[in-house]
């Protein structure tokens, strides 16, 4: 606040590309895009050193709307792509982003194992409790009795997936819930997540105005239930026990060992050949 810092080189705007989003007007994902670009500006990251990796879905279209490196991958595989990139190029700031279908349904296994591996990257799930891109089917976070999809006319019939709880149980080291309607807060969380040396997971409640129009009303339901951060995993899990699903904040944060590849050295290939010589 008091410090006078030099004028930043890049503004949030500079992290946006000139590609027009395919998103519906009012879609929560616009705000997530905005928060990501603001966070990048905040951290003054050089565009060429940042990569945003996604899967397939409305939300997963986000990389092309930024001006950093991007990868719009395949459905459900954003995290493996992102982890491969980060392992091979630890110097790159890696963000991974996508939808609740992409991340918790088809991509659920990678989600669990990425939480365990704790590789230093930030995973942002735009949770709209629906499959937007394929016309509104139930996702894992959809209520059991939601009857709007023709595919599940009686409702999906399965209790909603609990992303934060699974993330904690699986070992994520930085666990956040945010709301697309609170861009400034989200920006802060993204900055902290990028700074966190390990796997950060941010569930962003991001309304799908087309298939879940009732989500527009969520802005009055969200609250700062996680305003205080636990640094103890068990304590964080206890707090989840009486969460209504709309508490926002950094629920848990703890610096834990991140997956590191074997110690490296730099012999030459010719050195390896010796082992085959009789």
């Amino acid at each position, binding site marked *: 606040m008091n410090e006078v810092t030099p004028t930043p080189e890049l503004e949030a705007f500079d992290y946006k590309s000139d590609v027009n989003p*395919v998103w*519906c007007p009012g879609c929560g994902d616009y705000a997530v895009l905005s928060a990501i670009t603001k966070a990048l500006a905040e951290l003054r990251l050089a565009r060429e050193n940042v990569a945003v990796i996604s899967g397939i879905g409305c939300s997963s279209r986000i990389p092309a709307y930024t001006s950093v490196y991007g990868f719009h991958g395949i*459905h459900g595989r954003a995290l493996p792509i992102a982890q491969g990139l980060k392992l091979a190029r630890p110097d790159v700031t890696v963000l991974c982003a996508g939808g609740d279908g992409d991340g918790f349904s088809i991509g659920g296994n990678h989600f669990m194992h990425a939480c365990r591996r704790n590789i230093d990257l930030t995973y942002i799930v735009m949770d709209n409790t629906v499959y937007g891109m394929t*016309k*509104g089917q139930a996702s894992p976070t959809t209520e059991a009795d939601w009857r709007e999809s023709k595919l599940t006319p009686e409702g999906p019939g399965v209790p909603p997936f609990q992303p934060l709880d699974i993330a904690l149980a699986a070992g994520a080291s930085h666990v956040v819930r945010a709301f697309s309607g609170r861009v400034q807060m989200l*920006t802060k969380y993204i900055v902290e997540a990028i700074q966190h040396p390990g796997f950060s997971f941010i569930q962003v409640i991001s309304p799908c105005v087309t298939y879940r129009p009732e989500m527009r009303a969520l802005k009055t339901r969200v609250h700062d239930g996680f305003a205080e951060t636990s640094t103890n995993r068990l304590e964080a899990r206890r707090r989840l026990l009486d969460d209504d699903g709309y508490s926002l904040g950094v629920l848990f944060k703890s610096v834990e060992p991140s997956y590191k590849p074997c110690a490296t050295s730099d012999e030459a290939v010719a050195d390896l050949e010796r082992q085959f010589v009789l």
Partner: protein
Amino acid sequence: MNSMELFLAHALRLEEDSAINYDEMADALEVHHKGEVSRLFRKMAHYSRLHLAEVERRAAGLSLPRLKAWEYQWPGDDSPENAPAGEADYAMNEHDALILALKGEQGALAFYASVAEASSDAAVAALAKEFVAEESEHVALLEERLAKTPDTGPEHDPDPPVAAG
């Protein structure tokens, strides 16, 4: 808000955010063939840019603090002039768009007014008052236009949304 630097940093952020926000809505509604609505948002973006240029002029020579995105002392969570996130709608008519824009301008007005009233720095208060005047003009213009624009009801696209994945 007791220093000119701090105040101008806020004003800069507010106007820039709002310009980007209006442009984004204009783009989105263009796709929906909402010419009037899109033009309105485009115009609002233009006003914000004019205002931004003015703020920049005032800031010339000063060294403004670099605030983190969440360190701005907004009354709410977000830049006050931004139209409330998520309220844009493909079916919105001109009337709806005016209401949205009005909410944004009123937000900015309220912010500047609060500074004008609360700042202990006379120069800041004076400048904030100037901005209040400008925003009031926008508000009045929008109100006027709103009064002349009947609510014709949502313009639903009879075609269903596309499954694209």
